[in-house]
């Protein structure tokens, strides 16, 4: 298996430009090549079946039959050497530290704006900037407790940050379940190759949630707030709640009295102190944000303001997810930490800047255009792969609302050997989403979710658009 695999003019994770297996893949490749194709096929089927049986699925929106699909899982793991991971880790810690300082700043003194580093217009016009929270002190001064930062590697193998997800990043349950599936399938390999564990994620998350409990609460009650069973990430919500041993609640399970949050139990109302919410700001409290939200809890924002309940992530972090704000993160790192970014951004053009706009509109063909506040692969134009009409449609949208569009050169994402059927392996483009937990200290579980674009040539890795995932192995050593 995997013999004769070639890089084909792409940066490949496993083999170098001369098709030689890279040192950190060698031991794995030896073990993997001993697997017989018929055994591999059997493994694959049993993993898929196990995922389906366990209900490790996501809901497909707009499907009347309520179809649940498994997130396709590829059995060839993505491997990262120890040294490389150390650098990624340092880069991520640097980034989240700067983002947190930025959020504190714009909700307080706004020094970065006054010093002319970030134009005030971009902050004030941010769709997710919550001016109601200006001057509000969040517990322990932590804004983003859980961050999923998407990383990619370009054609030279250099790492870049593609985007930050500082609201309700999802996908971590796949990290944990993928690992479980791999351990069941290749039990011998882990020790042999030397793979660092990921199983402590839930524990670390729980510790971070306990850390932000309101003052004076010794034994806080922590809950996970879900939009409900019809949300596409519902499996993950129940999974994490179970792993942490906390209750999973829906909005209707909570009630606010005297600016305190309670849950409705068979024994009456019981106080709640920390809420890991998987609901966006907009839907959190119909008395404050969207009035039509039936998912939220009326009064919860008042309880939050009174300091009686803590939320993770804090309200208002969405401004840091704004793709326009993303362009300024390297400057934030410089401004707050006086450091150079360890992991650079992808070069980004802002449609609202006159000079960028001109270049952008004249060069839509080779660029990737993104709406500033969309995710999941929606609201995106991949110039080289789009028709004239699609490009013109985006041109109109950009001209009508330049504040909400950015453009980036199309990056040829690194590729990774991936099973394509019948025991054949080909290169497919991948990215990486590590999960950063910010509590008493910053913790990153080694690795993260490697997503893979299963369609040949595709660079869109989102599950809603034909993406799959891989287990990510961070090694103890470098080979």
């Amino acid at each position, binding site marked *: 298996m995997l013999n004769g695999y070639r890089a084909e003019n792409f940066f490949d994770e496993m083999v170098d430009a001369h098709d030689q297996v890279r040192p950190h893949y060698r031991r794995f490749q030896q073990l993997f090549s001993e697997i017989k194709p018929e055994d591999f096929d059997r493994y694959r089927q049993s993993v898929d079946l196990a995922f389906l049986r366990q*209900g490790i699925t996501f809901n497909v929106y707009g499907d009347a039959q309520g179809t649940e699909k498994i997130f396709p899982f590829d059995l060839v793991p993505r491997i990262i050497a120890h040294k490389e991971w150390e650098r990624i880790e340092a880069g991520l810690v640097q980034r989240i530290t700067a983002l947190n300082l930025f959020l504190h700043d714009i909700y307080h003194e706004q020094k970065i704006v006054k010093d002319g580093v970030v134009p005030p217009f971009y902050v004030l016009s941010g769709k997710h900037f919550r001016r109601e929270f200006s001057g509000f002190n969040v517990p322990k001064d932590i804004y983003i407790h859980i961050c999923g930062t998407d990383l990619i590697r370009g054609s030279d193998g250099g790492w870049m940050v593609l985007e930050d997800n500082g609201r309700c990043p999802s996908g971590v349950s796949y990290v944990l379940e993928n690992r479980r599936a791999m351990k069941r399938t290749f039990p011998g390999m882990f020790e042999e190759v030397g793979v660092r564990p990921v199983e402590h994620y839930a524990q670390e998350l729980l510790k971070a949630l306990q850390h932000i409990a309101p003052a004076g609460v010794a034994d806080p009650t922590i809950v996970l707030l879900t939009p409900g*069973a019809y949300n596409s990430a519902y499996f993950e919500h129940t*999974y994490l709640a179970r792993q942490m041993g906390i209750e999973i609640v829906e909005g209707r399970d909570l009630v606010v*009295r*005297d600016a305190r949050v309670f849950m*409705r139990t*068979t024994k*009456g109302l019981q106080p709640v102190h920390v809420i890991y919410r998987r609901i966006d700001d907009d839907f959190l409290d119909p008395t404050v944000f969207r009035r039509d939200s039936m998912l939220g809890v*009326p*009064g919860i924002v008042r309880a939050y303001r009174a300091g009686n309940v803590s939320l993770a992530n804090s309200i208002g972090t969405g401004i840091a997810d704004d793709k326009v704000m993303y362009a300024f993160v390297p400057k934030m790192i410089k401004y707050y930490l006086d450091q150079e970014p360890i992991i650079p951004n992808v070069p980004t053009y802002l449609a609202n800047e006159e000079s960028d706009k001109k270049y952008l509109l004249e060069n839509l063909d080779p660029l990737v255009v993104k709406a500033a506040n969309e995710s999941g692969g929606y609201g995106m134009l991949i110039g080289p792969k789009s028709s004239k009409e699609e490009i013109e449609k985006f041109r109109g949208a950009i001209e009508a609302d330049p504040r909400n569009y950015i453009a980036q050169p199309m990056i040829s994402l690194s590729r990774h050997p991936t099973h394509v059927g019948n025991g054949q392996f080909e290169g497919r483009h991948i990215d990486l989403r590590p999960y950063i937990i910010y509590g008493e200290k910053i913790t990153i579980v080694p690795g993260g979710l490697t997503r893979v674009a299963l369609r040949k040539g595709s660079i869109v890795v989102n599950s809603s658009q034909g993406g799959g995932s891989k287990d990510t192995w961070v090694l103890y050593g470098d080979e």
Partner: protein
Amino acid sequence: MLSRVANCLYWMSRYIERAENIARLVDTNLQLLLDFRKLDEQRLAEHWLPVVQATGDEDEFFKLHPIATAEAVTEFMVFQMENSNSIMQSICQARENARMVRDQITGELWEELNRLYLFIRSQDARRLWDQSPSEFFEKIKASSLHIVGITFATLIHNEGWQFNQVGKFLERADKTSRILDVRHQTLPERGSPKSINQTEALEWSAILRSCSAWDAYKSIYGAEIHPKLVAEFLLLNEDLPRSVRFCVTELNTALRRISGVQEGRFVNEAEKLAGRLLAELQFGTVDEIFDRGLHNYLDELQLQLNSIGDALFESYFFLSFATFDEEVFVQQEEQQQQQARRLIGSPDRPRARPGPLKTA
């Protein structure tokens, strides 16, 4: 325990039990037909209509089918999604409830229930049904019993488990009473028949088989089948795990474990009703039942079981469902009061917490 979670656990086990009992009912009636020769359409309808009536879904049935043929009834009770109590719907509902409380149940339980769900939704289910209905029902029953076993052996026996038990035994008591009611038209309105003919004997033994009670019946009463004895066994027997008395005993025990209230007392309506019904079943006799008429008695019994379910909802789940608009209003009011207090400069004093919410 969250009220919503308790509610889900209760309904999860009710629906699993429902699926199993419908499988039992239809299976036995299909097999029964093998014992009769040459039945015309009229006779077939006479056979199948009571089966639909037993489930209480007669009106729904006739909205979908003109007459009670074997195909129509079995389709209605097994696969039809329009029937909210079909096996298919029951399994989907059980699984949906389980999905909402996945963090509260074990992986083993979820996987078995999910397996059953994936099976019934698959083409394999249809294929098996076409080949051999009895094997199909065997599979449904086996899976349900497997789930009951997994529940017992892997779920922590805490409050949630008690709600699960309540749901299971309430449903089972109801279904046993309905299965027993299937042949009531062959009985006099009051009193019991002196003797029954060969066909009727087969029909009554089918009822026993539906409740897995045939062998146990013979060992206690001998080979003679009599409606009175069948009713006594399925209603009043202390030890038969599908008898109504057994179910109500278990139900009553689970209710008391939830509240911690001892026998002979009650703190809510559900406990009062369950305790009263249990006493009737413990001290009642089958002669009294037949004096009133079996069908009348069973009708009444089903109403009593329903009111236990309603009372349970009132006592433990209902406070979950205050209307949303009402909540928004309460919050706005609280906020205004807070602001008013600030305006007149009085210190914020904590107020007494209001009691349970009013409901719509």
